[in-house]
């Protein structure tokens, strides 16, 4: 069924100028000394008796407005001063000249306080040093709301106001903004938190997304990453994946529009995969790992929501495959006897990279008996020959995911990546007479002019070898590709930024 976005009758669409009555610009501090404290902090209580001595000081208090005693403190209960002036620790003392901060000290350091106040014997009876406490403006329970309140205008996207009785999950379904599974509601708090995952500016344009060929900004990616369920540290991987698919080489327009069952398969390499907790082991292509599943899902949500690529519209897949919800995994580099996929594609050691491949769903290669590399390579070749059709050569690439138990067979015989690939190519030379149209009772095949030639199943570089999977099981997996090369899609590798 064709899904269309509903007209916004139930919705109030607000332009990005929405602003509750809060101060989003940075308030100017009064000249002289500014001290920020909270009663809950023992160090603040320790220095409180000193504050009446600071005659040019303005004191802001975060919690109890009557604290400190004997000082006419200003309440910072809404934490506007603390937020806008990046107060991470209390007490903080700032010297302000002509409205500009010129010096700051945090916690209690007697010499620093004496320097900033100009009072040579200040705190003679106090210890030399006491660390301060966390500012309420960086309290993990408050920071998301404060960011939305005071930095929400960073976000330029249109606001959608929910009616009182709207269930946000149902509303997002009704609007056609999901992939068929529930999404996380993209609130200002969540999107701003997501943007903390990258150093890139929210307004940076990352790519032109087909099929509508519209610019996608970091902010729009962050919104869709929230919906997909990503953590902020996944965002650079989502951005890199979108850079990798939105170009003429990978041709995500064609990958989307084709009647074949393919979508972007994202293979992640580098130490960052382990830092963000990606799975490269047991059930590597399956469910259960948040990073694997949500990075791939976010990429697909951007294609759907920003690019306008929806099933039944520009997406014309006859069958599709479940991986079009999300298909993203990490290579097991630590346990691999092979150089990694990224290294084989020119990525230096220690770098993080994504490689995107237009692929169908994975299929298992079983060989539980082979214990020498020749026999196992024979099994691999026999299975690889069937990609899309055993009589179709050269037109499709493949990802070959060698499982650890199979990899061990090759490693023990001294076969490295290049050797294994060369052996497979040798075994995948197809006699023309076997693959011409009509041969073996099958109409599919190559034209009769090739009957006296030998054609390779895969073009040079057409097998992308990856090491991944659980440590038990004499299995590997393969992912068939789509029309390859300049007429279709070429695998693309991109470094992951920060």
């Amino acid at each position, binding site marked *: 069924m064709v899904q269309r976005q509903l007209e916004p009758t139930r919705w109030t669409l607000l332009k990005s100028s929405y602003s509750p009555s809060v101060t989003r610009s940075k308030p100017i501090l009064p000249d002289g000394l500014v001290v920020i404290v909270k009663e809950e902090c023992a160090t603040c209580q320790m220095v409180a008796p000193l504050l009446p001595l600071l005659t040019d000081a303005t004191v802001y208090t975060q919690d109890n407005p009557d604290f400190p005693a004997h000082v006419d403190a200003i309440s910072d209960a809404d934490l506007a001063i603390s937020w806008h002036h990046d107060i991470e620790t209390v007490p903080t003392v700032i010297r302000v000249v002509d409205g500009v901060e010129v010096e700051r000290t945090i916690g209690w350091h007697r010499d620093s306080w004496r320097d900033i106040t100009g009072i040579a014997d200040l705190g003679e009876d106090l210890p030399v040093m006491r660390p301060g406490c966390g500012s309420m403006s960086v309290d993990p329970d408050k920071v998301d709301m404060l960011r939305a309140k005071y930095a929400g205008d960073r976000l330029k996207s249109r606001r959608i106001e929910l009616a009182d009785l709207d269930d946000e999950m149902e509303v997002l379904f009704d609007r056609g903004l999901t992939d068929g599974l529930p999404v996380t509601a993209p609130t200002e708090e969540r999107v701003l938190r997501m943007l903390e995952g990258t150093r890139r500016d929210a307004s940076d344009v990352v790519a032109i997304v087909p099929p509508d060929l*519209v610019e*996608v900004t970091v902010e729009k990616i962050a*919104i869709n990453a929230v919906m997909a369920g990503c953590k902020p540290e996944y965002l650079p991987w989502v951005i890199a994946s979108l850079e990798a698919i939105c170009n003429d080489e990978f041709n995500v327009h064609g990958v989307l529009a084709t009647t074949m069952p393919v979508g972007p398969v994202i293979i992640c390499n580098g130490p960052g995969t382990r830092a963000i907790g990606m799975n490269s082991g047991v059930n590597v292509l399956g469910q259960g790992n948040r990073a694997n599943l949500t990075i791939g899902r976010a990429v697909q949500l951007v294609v759907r929501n920003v690019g306008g690529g929806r099933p039944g519209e520009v997406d014309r897949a006859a069958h599709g495959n479940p991986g079009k919800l999300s298909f993203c995994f990490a290579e097991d580099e630590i346990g691999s006897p092979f150089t990694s996929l990224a290294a084989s594609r020119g990525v230096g050691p220690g770098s993080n990279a994504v490689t995107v491949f237009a692929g169908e769903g994975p299929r298992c290669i079983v060989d539980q008996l082979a214990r020498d590399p020749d026999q196992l390579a024979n099994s691999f070749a026999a299975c690889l020959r069937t990609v899309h059709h055993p009589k179709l050569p050269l037109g499709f690439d493949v990802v070959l995911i060698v499982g650890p138990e199979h990899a061990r067979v090759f490693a023990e015989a001294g076969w490295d990546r290049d050797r294994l690939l060369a052996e497979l190519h040798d075994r995948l030379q197809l006699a023309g007479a076997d693959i011409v149209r009509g041969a073996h009772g099958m109409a599919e095949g190559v034209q009769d002019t090739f009957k006296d030639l030998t054609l390779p199943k895969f073009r040079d570089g057409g097998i992308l070898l990856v090491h991944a999977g659980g440590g038990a099981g004499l299995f590997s997996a393969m992912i068939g590709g789509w029309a390859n090369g300049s007429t279709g*899609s070429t695998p693309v590798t991109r470094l992951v930024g920060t």
Partner: protein
Amino acid sequence: MAHGTTPKSPSLYGVGVARLLLDPTSERSVIERTRLDRPSSIDGKVIGLLDISKPRGNVFLDRIEDRLTAAGATVKRYKKPTFTKPAPVDLRHEIATQCHLVIEALAD
């Protein structure tokens, strides 16, 4: 409060503040263009036939060309480099400036 909503902190937001979501779409406004009227006759018209480079598209287009030529039209043939990508902008411009009508062949 409706079920499934995001809890808010009354101390920071206050009661009755709207729940807002950010629009994940391109926020693009689609410009609708009306099609040209169908010509009452193709006699004397220049008709472009665009082969999208799918196998056997030429078989279909050869037959169409015969029929159109017999009906008095002038036929011009064009071909996309690959069926997997949109037609290059230069090709679209060429067809638009040289033809009155265009037929695109989807075949297999």
